[in-house]
């Protein structure tokens, strides 16, 4: 065979190999920052220009149920960043009763949750080849499995996400639905990302800043 032939084969096989290795979804390895999502939605029947004061508790509520609850490690990062952005949006924070009744209340909460993926990886396609070689290790499984079939290996992967959500509500603007009093939410926003234990504070700040930046409707001086 000519040298050209082998060159052409190499030209074909190398990209093909790369293709096979990367599969249908290449570039799947994200940094923790690249998993960050910022979501917000506002109530378009509210005239935010009429609002000027707000109250925010000094607590970040732990969301989630039962045993999954775990105290938020850095609540001040969350609260301080919300407060500075609220000030920039034109709101004054009320901290004492003497300062009067706030127009809106901001409540922040956080939840940590772990997602586990379980999959099965087959060592070889059932019925392909190996069955013809008794005594090749796999043969020992014969008592339990029909020839040509081998048990798959389980695979696990998991990731833990941190989510911070905060709502702006007006306790005096509510609906009574089926006997429950529900305050109308004026604005709600959230930040979520995969936790990697590193620069979480920077990511929280970036997320909260982005949530306000993408919600110009809530500014009091529109």
């Amino acid at each position: 065979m000519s040298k050209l032939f082998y060159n052409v084969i190499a030209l074909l096989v190398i990209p093909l190999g790369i293709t096979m290795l990367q599969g249908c979804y290449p570039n799947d390895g994200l940094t923790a920052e690249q998993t960050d999502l910022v979501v917000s939605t506002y109530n378009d029947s509210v005239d935010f220009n009429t609002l000027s004061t707000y109250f925010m508790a000094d607590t970040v509520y732990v969301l989630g149920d039962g045993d999954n609850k775990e105290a938020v490690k850095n609540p001040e990062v969350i609260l301080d960043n919300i407060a500075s952005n609220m000030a920039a949006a034109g709101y004054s924070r009320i901290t004492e009763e003497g300062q009067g009744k706030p127009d809106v209340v901001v409540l922040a909460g956080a939840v940590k949750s772990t997602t586990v993926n379980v999959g099965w990886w087959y060592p070889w396609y059932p019925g392909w080849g190996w069955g013809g070689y008794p005594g090749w290790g796999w043969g020992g499984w014969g008592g339990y499995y029909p020839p040509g079939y081998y048990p798959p290996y389980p695979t696990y992967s998991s990731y833990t996400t941190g989510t911070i959500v905060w709502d702006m509500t007006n306790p005096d603007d509510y609906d009574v639905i089926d006997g429950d009093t529900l305050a109308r939410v004026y604005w709600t926003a959230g930040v979520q990302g995969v936790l990697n234990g590193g620069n979480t504070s920077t990511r929280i700040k970036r997320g909260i800043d982005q949530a306000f930046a993408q919600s110009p409707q809530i500014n009091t001086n529109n």
Partner: protein
Amino acid sequence: MKKNKFLLSAVLVVLFGFSSFSQGGGVWNFDWNIGFGTGETADFVSAPSFRGFSIDGRGFVTDNITVGGIAGWNTFYESDGVVTRKFGETGTVNGYNRKYVNTLPIMINSHYYFAQTTIMPYAGIGVGTMYVETRDFMGIYYIQDKAWHFALAPELGIVLPLGNSNTGINANVKYNWAAKTRDTPSASYVSLNIGISYVF
């Protein structure tokens, strides 16, 4: 799904059928595919795809005409980086975006070979189905579209035999078009395919 099974079975039957009476021999092509999205595919992912290959078998039914089949695969990928998008009436989402299009054409085809000498130029067309799966990611979440489409693929190419061997270099350009379905848009791309031709 029933329709797809029927189509796939038809492709196989035709392939085997023609290979048995193609007394005049035939051609196997193993090609690396480089894809350039057009139309709605380009609107979604504008970057070219270097991840693709196809296997194409053709049997001569006359001196110049082949009938056969092809199966291939192409992956298109592009990231817009961090993007901000609207959803619903008043919602906004911000995150790192990645977009994927995977195409899997399975077609029967027919080609006309203008000459079978030192070079073998040919023209042809494929008809069949193309499975198209698109994913639009924001962070770790995605929206997926997937469907089997009716598909056509006209093609112009050339085989350059290597010396006196029955092996040659195959190069062709093909327009791959998948009709829109009820739920998913049309998909299309031009592919440059280069590989090995085995003439028997």
